[in-house]
């Protein structure tokens, strides 16, 4: 992927921030066609985003080469996601800032796999190991999904 230049400002954590990533993915269909199908529902969770013990949970539905649904997960959505990718606001912020600094390419220690490999600072959770493995099957696409955050200026509501 080439270098990205930000064109709008969105605060994080927010539903709007993930909606922006979805819009970018849907606008860049050719790139995602090259990477191949992504068929899963990912829950992105920002711990304590709403206050202590109150995370922001956003579920993103990937279907084929695009995102078909982005929603803040309510109690009824608990079983919907194939897996959850969660971290505290500080870890999210460091990753997003690294992606912005690299104009769409995170630093070596800020890729999704790097951050989640030891279950910290990011953690991938699923009750079903086959569903958890979807995180690996689509890893490049998911990486590029978050890399698109470089296309906006992210402001942070929660201080690290």
């Amino acid at each position, binding site marked *: 992927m080439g270098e990205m230049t930000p064109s709008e400002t969105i605060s994080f954590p927010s539903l709007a921030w993930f909606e922006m990533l979805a819009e970018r993915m849907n606008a860049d269909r050719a790139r995602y066609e090259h990477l191949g199908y992504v068929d899963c529902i990912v829950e992105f969770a920002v711990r304590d985003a709403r206050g202590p013990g109150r995370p922001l949970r956003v579920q993103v539905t990937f279907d084929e080469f695009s995102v078909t649904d982005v929603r803040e997960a309510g109690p009824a959505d608990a079983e919907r996601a194939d897996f959850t990718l969660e971290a505290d606001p500080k870890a999210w912020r460091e990753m997003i800032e690294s992606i912005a600094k690299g104009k769409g390419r995170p630093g*070596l220690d800020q890729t999704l796999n790097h951050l989640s490999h*030891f*279950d910290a600072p990011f953690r991938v959770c699923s009750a079903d190991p086959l569903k958890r*493995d979807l995180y*690996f*099957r689509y*890893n*490049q696409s998911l990486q590029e999904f978050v890399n698109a955050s470089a296309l906006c200026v992210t402001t942070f509501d929660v201080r690290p």
Partner: protein
Amino acid sequence: MTEIVAKPVGVESIAAYEREFGEKATEWAAILQENADKLKSGHYSLHWLDPQDSGWGRRARPSSRGLTYADVNQLPQSGELPKTATWLNFAPRGSIREPYRDRMPTVESYTVVDRDELWADNVITLYEEAKARQWNATRDIPWSELERLPDDLEKATCQLCTFLTEVEFVAGDFPAKWLYRIPQDFLEVKSFLSTQIMDEARHQEVFRKRAFAGGGLLHSAPGFEWALKAILDAPTHTMGTFLLNLLGEGLVLSIFRSGEMIAKTHVDKEIFRRCLQDEARHVSYGVLELKNSIDHAPDRGAAIEELHRFADVGELVILTAFSEPALVEPLAVLLGGGLAKIDQGMEGMAKLWSMFIGEYLQRCDRAGFPRDERCKIPKQAIWAR
């Protein structure tokens, strides 16, 4: 050392071929004569215009992502996936083939005739995904950005790539060995295995290229070879698939993930990220193939016990590869950040080991093969204090 002499394709082999088609199997000659006579007489058969009761006429319709096997399989005339394959030749499932059965040859190598020795409920999905997610080791890796690393890290990277080059093709040879034994009625499985062979060719290619881009290949190791032989010599397709796809590729998936994490260049990160996606597909097939086999076994308890006996041996032989200094040490050097920090790297590796084994046991459970209490691979790294 035993001298290995390549067998020439000699006069004897050609004579055997002549005997086979000239004296024993002569049905083809009768068919040729009949066809030639018809063609000479100017008489058209046109029998192929008669669909008989095959159901021909209903058309397959593409779904949103094109025309998939799943779309085609919805048509009744596409033919049912048999529990036991009886068509041991190339006549396609769904074709009008019964009238010709007696005149068709038998492919004797088609020995895996039991659906539950190879089927997995996700195999069609994985086949479509495999095709859609192919990548090119020549073009999709930003090779020109590869940076020179300090000597210890470069050698560790090249050694890791040597290990991966050595092991990757067994995951091509194993499905290839069985692909040849699977009848055409299981075309979906054959198609998926073909993608796995392509994936492994690409992995071998990318790691070989990465090694040479950094200076060259380093050491192969006997421990790797025994693990690979144990996979290749597995007595059944299901057992081998368990050992290769569920255990072996599960562990290699973990190595790819670790490789991505400890990579010192963006090029290496990209390589490992691409490879781990492919590997995770193979693991998924392994889990559900094992599950299908166990779920449909006539005697579930006996089937699980047989698998345990196999795993008791297989796990230990696989462990041999994962105890080799030629694998463990370069990983530790990369994880620690240099040769001087190899001890810290080993501590990190011990942590990863427990994670790897935990994930392996979860996948076994998912397949209905509870391995926790019998697992021969230590749950803690063998060097952990």
